[in-house]
């Protein structure tokens, strides 16, 4: 199973087309190619963190600075970032546009990802975070643009879940 080169390119271009100039990320398999694009692009600042909760702070700083910022993380990183999401972003009304690689869900062969995959949607609902699943390259640009727009208008976290259909090459 390999990560989709084409779709990674489509997603990165969609992020750029949404006017985003700043990304925070913790690298992981599905996001790897996307982050390579970001590293090579002088129009985008990429900030890699040691743990995903840091990125909530970085995103808040970018928002205060008036920068258009998107967060890239795996769903287990989202789970690790929850206190920052609740007690910084939601408490103070700070927008977060989170693109989350949904590991451990439909079709997951690796047991270690499965618990996180199974609980991700329920945790998003419990936190009142609006979310959508990104499944096809045709729709993902619109989804990223709209996730960003909603995060800014609602001053709250918004999640777009990047699924296996989108992120892996078909068998």
């Amino acid at each position, binding site marked *: 199973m390999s990560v989709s080169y084409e779709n990674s390119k489509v997603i990165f271009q969609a992020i750029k087309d949404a006017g985003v100039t*700043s990304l925070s990320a913790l690298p992981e398999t599905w996001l790897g190619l996307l982050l390579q694009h970001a590293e090579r692009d002088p129009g985008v600042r990429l*900030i890699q*963190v*040691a743990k995903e909760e840091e990125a*909530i*702070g970085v995103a*808040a*700083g970018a928002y205060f*600075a008036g920068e258009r910022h998107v967060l890239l993380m795996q769903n287990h990183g989202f789970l690790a970032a929850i206190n920052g999401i609740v007690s910084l972003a939601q*408490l103070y009304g700070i927008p977060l546009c989170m693109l989350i690689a949904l590991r451990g869900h439909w079709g997951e062969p690796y047991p270690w990802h499965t618990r996180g995959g199974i609980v991700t949607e329920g945790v998003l609902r419990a936190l009142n975070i609006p979310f959508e699943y990104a499944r096809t390259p045709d729709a993902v640009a619109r989804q990223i643009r709209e996730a960003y727009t909603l995060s800014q208008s609602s001053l709250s976290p918004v999640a777009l879940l990047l699924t296996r259909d989108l992120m892996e090459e078909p068998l």
Partner: protein
Amino acid sequence: MKRSECIAMLYPELGDKAVVTIMGACAQELYDLGHRENFFYLQHAMGLASSIGLGLALHLPREKVVVLDGDGSVLMNLGTLATLARYRPANLVHVIFDNGSLLSTGGYDSHTASGMTDLAAMARGAGIEHVAAVDSVVAFGEAAIDAFARNDLSVIVARVAAVGPNYYGMDLHLPENAFRFRRWIAGRTSTREKP
């Protein structure tokens, strides 16, 4: 030395800088000297003040950013030292008040209380070049002057007594603080961009 003495010494220098504090005593002591629109008090999310400072500093290269942090908060987000070292924002001054105590949440000893854990050494080990460890008001003042003058990431670890204010309270709602802080930055940016 008391943290409040250090903050009082910094206060006159903070008028034109973006300032982020941690929760509790540190926030209160700065607020009690007189709130300014360029102060953001992170009243929860322990550990993230320095991450906010990093996001501010990288995206506002022409502003000086000051983070007033504490040992308990830094211990909750030690990775931040390595992330700061990696991106090395030249315009960030990271002050860590180390009172060896989780003072604002009940006064329990933190891991630095015994003196075994050395946050300055950890910052150096993370790769931060300019780290000052101070335990007197005079040394703190000198380290702060150096840090503000230096065009490079600077960390000051200040050993302070585990004492705080008698009263906690602000006439400032949390989102209001965020909105006004952002507006102060936007005002600075737009004023500067005018010919």
